[in-house]
């Protein structure tokens, strides 16, 4: 592994190792990996698996930034391993699993709770329509479109301090984005604001905007999804004019 005649550079990675069932064995191991142009952290992890330690556990799939499987904390910051060039860091690179989720093994965490949250969000429910062809326009599509870029890497859930501290109470940024994508669907008929207020714990979010900083798909999570969803909740539940209108008309 020492530098050969052609003076290949190498990268030093400090990798978290541990078992969910026995956290007393948590540790870090250091590996030196030869550098190649365009190398990303996931390449380095694969090199370690194939050359040094095949028991190193890591989750990955497309290696193209499309599937959102290889989420990790790289030098403390939530990132996709496949989209993080090793060249962006000067010295040693520390790779750790996402902290907001229970550890399974090494870099792999248990993210199954996310699917349970997704099940609870009132699903897309189209407006009554007898037309075979739905007519709506590109401008109607744009609002929801941004949220549909989400690749469910759960990095926003990972960085969210509310999720880290009040997991049971707040669904987290990914799922506010999901609710927003449904709310802003031009053919959706539901109003999710009471769900967002009462079950989703949207009020817990205090708009620190950490989530939108880590989104690999560049979704402006807080400004474009969370704040409008909060406004919907407020409009529905706290707007005095709406309250009077509902009292008088009896409409919900």
């Amino acid at each position, binding site marked *: 592994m020492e530098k050969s005649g052609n003076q290949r550079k190498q990268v030093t990675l400090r990798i978290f190792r541990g*078992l*969910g*069932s026995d956290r007393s064995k948590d540790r870090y191991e250091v590996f030196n990996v030869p550098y*190649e*142009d*365009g*190398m*990303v952290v996931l*390449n380095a992890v694969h090199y370690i*698996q*194939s050359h040094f*330690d*095949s*028991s190193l*556990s*890591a989750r990955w*799939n*497309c*290696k*193209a*930034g*499309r*599937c*959102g*499987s290889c989420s990790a904390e790289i030098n403390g910051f939530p990132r996709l391993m496949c*989209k993080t060039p090793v060249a962006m860091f000067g010295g040693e690179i520390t790779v750790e699993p996402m902290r907001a989720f*229970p550890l*399974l*093994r*090494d870099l*792999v965490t*248990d993210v*199954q709770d996310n*699917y349970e949250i*997704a*099940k609870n969000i009132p*699903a*897309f429910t*189209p407006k009554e329509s007898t037309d*075979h*062809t*739905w*007519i*709506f*326009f*590109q401008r109607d*599509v744009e609002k*929801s*479109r941004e949220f*549909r*870029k*989400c*690749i*469910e890497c759960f990095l926003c859930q990972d960085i969210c301090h509310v999720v880290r501290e009040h997991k049971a109470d707040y669904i987290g940024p990914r799922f506010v984005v999901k609710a927003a994508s*449904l709310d802003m*669907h*031009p*053919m*959706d008929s539901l109003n999710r604001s009471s769900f967002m207020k009462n079950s989703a714990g949207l009020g817990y979010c205090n708009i620190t905007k950490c989530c939108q900083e880590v989104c690999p798909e*560049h979704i402006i999570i807080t400004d474009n999804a969370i704040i409008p969803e909060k406004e919907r909740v407020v409009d529905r539940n706290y707007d005095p004019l709406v309250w009077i209108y509902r009292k008088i008309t009896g409409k919900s």
Partner: protein
Amino acid sequence: MWSTTSSQKQFDPADESYETTSCDVLIVGAGGAGMRAAIESFDKGAKTLLVCKSLLGKAHTVMAEGGIAAALANIDPQDNWKIHFSDTIVEGQQLSNWRIAEIFAKEAPERVMELEYYGALFDRTEDGKIMQRPFGAHSYRRLCYIGDRTGLELIRTLEDQVLKRNIPYMDETEITWIFKDPATGAVSGALAIKITTGELLLIKCKAIILATGGCGKVYAVTSNSWESTGDGIALAYRAGAELMDMEMIQFHPTGMIYPAGVRGMLITEAVRGEGGILTNAKGERFMEKYDPKRLDLSARDVVSRSIYTEIQEGRGTPNGAVYLDIRHLGAERIKEKLPSMYYQFLEFAGIDITKQKMEVAPTVHYQMGGIRVVPDTCETNIHGLFAAGEVACGLHGGNRLGGNSLSDILVFGRRAGLAASEYIKNTPQGEVAGQDLSGEIKRILAPFKSLNGANPFDLKDRIAATMWKYVGIVRNEIDLRKGLEEIGLIKLDSKNLQAKGARAFNQSWADSMAVWNMVLDCEAIIRSALTRKESRGAHTRSDYPKKDDANWMVNIITKQKDGQMIQEVVPVPKMPPEYEALINREEILAWKKNVK
């Protein structure tokens, strides 16, 4: 129901214990085909279980970019299923099964509308309908799309439907073997490994739908994800199912070439659909030579061969590629129509495609061949075994049109789910023989017992390098023989593989199983490529450079006979005369003359 937990048990590598569960219909793979099959089977009342290797919603379908081909005729009113049928068959170099292509072209529009009703948000036309874009070798603007993230939208939409219905699923679970009832020979179960724990699970079932996708990972340069190790092909073959047209591997014309770490990553055909132009190092628009009518939007096999020829003849870039230029579209439109491509180049290569040309070269993309199925029901020659999507064969012939794969998985995912849910009604649960089960458990745990076995990572690399070198875009007898010999040596080495560490999330164990599957896929690909002594579609032989309709209008079947892999040649099923007329349209004949 089967959720993974963080308080996982640690399995001793030698532990041969297993849990048992059961269902009616087991669906292997949760890409578009698997999820659509699960929805159909579940809705028809079958006890359904969906199993996939990755997390739910991460399947390779997310990588599909350009769109879903369906003759909705929203933009070009002249379009209809007959022309879609004809395009599919003609560009498939007439190897497609006509009945499969007919079902496909007729049902694709319904499936797209269904996806819209499920909540997918397609781009719109001026008058508010689903937008359609042009794509390589489609006669009309036919691809319904969601920017350049169509696959992601498709998978998320279907995933939402799966979650909404609470269809039981087990993700991060790999199926290693299909069991058959010793008396009837029908499907009776499967063995699974839960990747997160290493636990073994016997799943008793009456029917299995394979929707496992392709085998792109057998090549060194591929757009495919880690899952694409041809597992379904291997499962089916070992269960006695027939494979077909395995030599037909699609090279997508435009893969990234630089930097090395991302070599092979896909550049969507939508770049050319939106007006992107291919040029060689001399600045010539070389597609004018190869297909003057359709130019950059010619069929994928034609464009890939053209790029290959330009590079081989010394007109490539220093990185061994050609240029793809979309700058003339303007920065704003590029970011609107091709947002993922814009970021992909910026983030992975540091290239701004609104200001710089892309460098591209062919990358292995899709397997047209696969498991031989009955057109209407997707059933194989094994009772209770069905296949849909990329793992199945019969629609795409010698070359798949862009956008046809997404409609394929919806149309035949649904049909497989429907047929399986019917099949199980009158089928008793078969037996899983004890010796079959214990034999399979021994087989898959062997790498943990090995002390001096080969490193599965090394073997994977050797497979990928061998296939790229000897079984690439242009093939010949000598190279194919060398490839077969090398794969034979790898096969010998793969009999003793070594996995280290615990069973949970063990990449070397997963790769050991991948190697066994990949070796089988490669052997089928090479033997089929040796059999077809002509050039047709994606299969180009420099020693047989001409298409030979007189002798090779055939499908090549791969199957087991007395424990050996054999090939058989069967004529392509003849279509009714009225369909013959559809594919002999004058304009198509005129194109064919011009295409080199």
